[in-house]
């Protein structure tokens, strides 16, 4: 899986490359990505390069995305949004319960 990178541009013209997963730890950046993405570059008109660097530093420390956790969360999401039958089909789970005989 190739990492998507985005470029953040500060008010004083400095650019910082950062992996998308890292940048999206910040709510503010997430909103800006949604609102104003010019190619891959996101302008921060009110933030200097120094401050932006600090923000990214913080985001890097708080990335919770290890592959296993991400996979587990994704699977959990599938389970959460589907019926039992749909889950069985989606994940190819065979129902090996023997049906109860009616008494």
């Amino acid at each position, binding site marked *: 899986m190739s990492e998507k990178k985005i470029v953040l541009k500060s008010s004083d013209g400095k650019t910082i490359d950062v992996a998308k997963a890292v940048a999206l730890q910040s709510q503010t950046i997430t909103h800006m990505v949604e609102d104003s993405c010019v190619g891959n570059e996101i302008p921060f008109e009110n933030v200097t390069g120094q401050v932006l660097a600090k923000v990214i530093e913080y985001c890097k420390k708080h990335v919770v995305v290890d592959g*296993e*956790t991400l996979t*587990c*969360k994704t*699977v*959990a*999401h599938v*389970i*959460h949004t589907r019926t*039992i039958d749909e*889950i*069985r089909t989606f*994940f*190819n*789970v*065979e*129902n*090996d*319960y023997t049906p109860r005989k009616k008494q």
Partner: protein
Amino acid sequence: MGISELSDELLIKILSFLPTKDAVSTSILSKQWEFLWMWLPKLEYTSRYYLESTCERLKCFLDRNLPLHRAPVIESFHLEFGAKQFKPEDIKLWVLTAVSRNVRELEISQIYSLSLPNNIFPSSLYTCKTLVTLKLNGDILMDVPRMVCLPCLITLRLVRVTYLNEDSLQRLLSNCSVLKDLSVERGLFDNWRKFIAIVPSLKRLNFRTAHDLDEIVIKTPSLKYLDFTYYSSMIHHCLIEI
């Protein structure tokens, strides 16, 4: 590669990201899934149990399954309900099981109910060595035994709680040696006339009452944050040392 090839440990991790109700329902997927949810350390039964019928089903479910829970430590047990359909004995038994499994966080909320307060706690709760967070909201009666000791309790929230004895709350607070965060909100029908909090470790205190007390004593030398709301014009004695 199907999901059935994953280890039980990984499947349990997947379940840990689901609301308890969803995790439980996976037990009918196949035999492999039958008991996996019983290894979950966090159990939350909230916000759906306001109807008599759903409460009845939950009661049967918990009576049958909670004693069989396989996780050696129940990290958190959170029960929220709206009706007064659970008998005190029911809740007492569930709390007893959670305490016997070294519960760390216990949260019980009873919303939309105006009934006489019920004693829902086993005495073992008051000497639970592992309890870190206790949050109570509802018509709950606390019968604090003489030998109360909660050596790990850091966060305590008591909303609308009443006490069997006048000095119950004071005794409880005095035996929480590491308590940092206390939040107390009086209900409309409680019975207490005094609020005495002598807690050297306390850093945050929220206190709210809409009707009067005879006496307030707060001695909390480590306090950093205080939110004190007293909607009444009468107080006989008030001493606050922070």
